[in-house]
């Protein structure tokens, strides 16, 4: 084991990540040229990121232990967010000209949050709006590699459970090496994105989606499969036909499903997906949330046919999968529906997917552990391991899951108070519910919230200090808290 954290190795790996950014930046520069827009915002950061990346990459590379991995993960998201904000600043249009806004948008992108500071979409060029979507797609790809390749091997906050759930003692069994696993899941991710582009264009060809051009098809596919939620349309997915909305619902659900299970499904083995307890739990939660919302809407205004149901399903799926699209301003919904959505922000999709938040796997374990505690309270002599899809879970893992869930809720509570107090300081009128929504939506990487930060609003009017704190917490939330928290312990840096 390394005696102390090996900074050179970390820096070298980070260099590879930075160098990799040259590809999306290059593509966007070409896209900008194609639309007759200035390629400078993308070409300018391309050069330093290649030079810096190349320089760092040359550093001596040793073994990558847990500490190097944590540091790499934390730094990678941070530095990509910084580089990603450069095009926004250089383009200099609208609110994105302000560096804090640019960084907010970029971090919101790379963490697949989907919280935006933009209210006036029309002032921004098409390439800049596409860059937002590309950042989210990259963030989704990064998290797949991270969740499957790294976190599940480092026994972090119960992420190792995924191995139990996917019924591979070790994910590397999928193929011999992590890199191979990551490549397979990455391939699946690319494939799903391409499939969605084709489906959306197909709908247009058959006349069911008149305004879904190639640009919109690509932009939305990039942010659907990554369960991220940026849209170049001010009305989000509400701008498109019901057929498009149903397709997007389906792909959000797929994006929030464990990719290892999807991989087996794609290779003709649906049994693993069927047998996954988490998958059933996830679908059951989605169904009951939708049911509650339909009931609340029906109580308030009566059901107006399939439209009410579609809106309920869309919003529930969008929030529970941490995507953050909207087809209707759900901020105007009755309290019950809005509270179901707020609670949904804490649920998230399946582990091993592109979703954020606490995730259904952890809630499933928490629920099972509660039931076990109730049982052992009556039968103290009984010994009952907790099982997931038939396999026993280690007691240390259960504790990790508890810790993670509790820490998330506590951080959320502190962020809420900070948002409120900071808003009061500058005289911004903000209700507690709106503050809670904004805090949960950024920290848990959902995107829109309620009130001024609603689906058709923006985070622009929050004070700069609040935006900076939200930027940090989007980062912390996306990489599952622990990789950042450990950096603040003395044990991490000591030999």
């Amino acid at each position: 084991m390394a005696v102390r954290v090996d900074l050179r190795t970390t820096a070298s790996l980070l260099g590879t990540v930075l160098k990799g950014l040259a590809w999306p930046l290059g593509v966007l520069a070409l896209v900008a040229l194609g639309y007759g827009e200035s390629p400078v915002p993308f070409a300018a950061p391309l050069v330093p990121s290649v030079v810096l990346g190349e320089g760092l990459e040359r550093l001596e590379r040793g073994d990558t232990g847990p500490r190097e991995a944590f540091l790499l993960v934390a730094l990678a998201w941070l530095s990509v967010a910084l580089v990603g904000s450069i095009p926004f600043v250089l383009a200099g249009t609208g609110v994105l000209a302000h560096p804090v806004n640019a960084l907010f948008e970029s971090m919101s992108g790379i963490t697949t949050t989907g919280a935006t500071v933009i209210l006036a979409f029309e002032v921004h060029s098409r390439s800049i709006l596409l860059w937002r979507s590309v950042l989210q797609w990259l963030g989704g790809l990064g998290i797949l590699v991270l969740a499957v390749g790294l976190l599940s091997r480092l026994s972090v906050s119960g992420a190792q459970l995924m191995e139990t759930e996917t019924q591979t003692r070790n994910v590397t069994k999928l193929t011999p090496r992590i890199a191979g696993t990551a490549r397979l899941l990455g391939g699946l991710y690319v494939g799903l994105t391409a499939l969605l582009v084709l489906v959306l264009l197909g709908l247009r060809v058959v006349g069911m989606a008149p305004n879904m051009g190639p640009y919109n098809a690509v932009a939305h596919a990039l942010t659907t499969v990554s369960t991220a939620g940026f849209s170049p349309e001010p009305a989000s997915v509400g701008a498109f036909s019901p057929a498009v909305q149903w397709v997007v619902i389906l792909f959000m659900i797929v994006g929030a499903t464990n990719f290892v299970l999807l991989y087996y499904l794609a290779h003709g083995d649906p049994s693993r997906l069927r047998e996954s307890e988490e998958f059933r739990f996830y679908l059951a939660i989605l169904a009951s949330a939708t049911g509650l919302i339909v009931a609340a809407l029906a109580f308030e205004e009566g059901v107006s046919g399939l439209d009410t149901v579609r809106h309920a399903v869309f919003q529930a799926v969008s929030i529970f999968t941490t995507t953050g699209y909207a087809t209707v301003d759900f901020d105007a919904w009755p309290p019950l529906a809005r509270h179901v959505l707020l609670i949904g922000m804490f649920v998230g999709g399946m582990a091993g997917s592109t979703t954020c938040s606490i995730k259904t796997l952890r809630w499933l374990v928490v629920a099972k552990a509660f039931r076990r505690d109730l049982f052992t309270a009556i039968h103290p002599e009984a010994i009952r391991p907790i099982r997931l899809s038939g396999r026993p879970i280690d007691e240390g893992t259960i504790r990790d899951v508890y810790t993670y869930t509790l820490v998330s809720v506590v951080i959320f509570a502190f962020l809420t108070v900070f948002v409120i107090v900071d808003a009061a300081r500058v005289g911004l009128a903000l209700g507690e519910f709106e503050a809670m929504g904004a805090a949960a939506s950024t920290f848990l990487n959902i995107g829109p919230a309620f009130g001024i930060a609603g689906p058709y609003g923006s985070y622009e009017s929050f004070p700069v200090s609040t935006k900076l704190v939200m930027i940090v917490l989007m980062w912390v939330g996306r990489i599952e808290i622990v990789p950042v928290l450990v950096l603040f312990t003395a044990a991490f840096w000591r030999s």
Partner: protein
Amino acid sequence: MSWSHVDWRASVGLVGRVLKYLSAVLLVPFGVALFYGEDVPTFAAAFAVTVAIGIGLERVDPDPDLGSREGFLMVALTWLVVALVGTIPYLLAGFFGTESTLAQPVNALFESMSGFTTTGATVMGEISLDRHSHAILLWRQLTQWLGGMGIVVLAVAILPELSVGGAQLMDAEAPGPGIQKLTPRIAETARVLWLAYLGFTLLEMVLLYGLHLVGLAPNMDLFNAVSHPLTTMPTGGFSPEARSIEAFSAAVQWVIIPFMIAAGTNFALFWHVLNGEPERLFRDTEFRSYAGVIGVLTAVIAGLLFTGIGISANPSAVPPIIGAFEDSVRHAAFNVVSIVTTTGYANMDFNTWGAPAKYLLLFAMFIGGSAGSTGGAIKIVRWVVIVKSLRRELFTTVHPEAVSPVRLGGRVIDERAIRGIYAFTLLYLVFFFVATVLVVTDAWRVGYQVTAFESMSAVAATLGNVGPGFGVVGPMNSYLGFPATSKLLMTFLMWIGRLEILPVLVLLTPAYWRT
């Protein structure tokens, strides 16, 4: 024994016996009623009915034999039945014509449960001696005093038949994870706890009335001097004064603060102090954290009040605090201690405070007093263990090969206990969120205007047995406006909050009732 059917008759029989003896307490307000010549028939009838119910329930099983499952049922039922029976004086007083809001059965149950669980949330429309008799107001205080140290603990102390299974019963009732046996015999431990409790209560009565006699507390007459200690020591918070402790002088407020702090301390520590080991109090990790939390919160809020940042309302509408040192410290200390210990008194309407100070108080509602105290909510010791366990997790994440147990005061904590603490804390928060949504939805259903923040504070204050919240449920207001369904929900929250959820929740599992 533990794999057979639940012998619910035994539980019910024992509840009846407890109730029979408990009815003697009703003789106190009866005496007061005779003295003032008010509500005499109310308390005579209440006493008769309570004794009759007690004897009736006892008949169900005259010779109860409790197993572990019957114990859960007995503890949960005791609190439910006592709260139900506690409504009788309110209902009868209403029947005999006070036109109080407590004449409504749901309100009466809310007030009674709030009393016994030492919550201190009220639905009285008007708290004054003009509308209510001395006896009724004293009964409110007494319900809190009885609930404070625990009805089951009291039963274990005085009923010889509970000396065997008493430890398990006390464990189900006592606040915090696990009880400390102070003496070899559990009945004796129960007696020690109740005696310490009684001693503190009497001492506070003497001090308060003493202040009145030397002229430092003009309106702290004998009735008030007796009433307030009855709700200070159980961290209850009911007051016969509509303005709570604001009605009294600064000297009274300073006297009440240390008694609230004592009430939120683990009573086992006082036993050690009395046994000549006072250093154990200051060495205790939980007590130090508890004192630290109170100290830090008081300092921050005092600073906010002193500088005026903490006052949101029109400063001229609130007592002159800004720039007044003693006033700032006293108001900060009093309300912080009141909320952290889950008492629920107030010496000013903290609704007039600004957002930062109010949110600190809302957080404090989740901290709670010490284990083994009369305080409610999550309890300091659980938070201490959670923080230590989190630090351990971060350490083992970096050093996966390291084995580092979590220690508290030098003793290693069992991993199962740590998991139990996590489970309870999470369950508590889940109940909090779900109940908040239900309250908001219920208010929306009937069109009652209440904000998300007010609903949250109402749920936190009832589940944590604190009492007042913010806005419509602020310290000078009441829970009266909520729809009956919400009041019933909150009554339930107070009940499970006092018993720390698990003993009630197990009754709802099929495994409990199966053979």
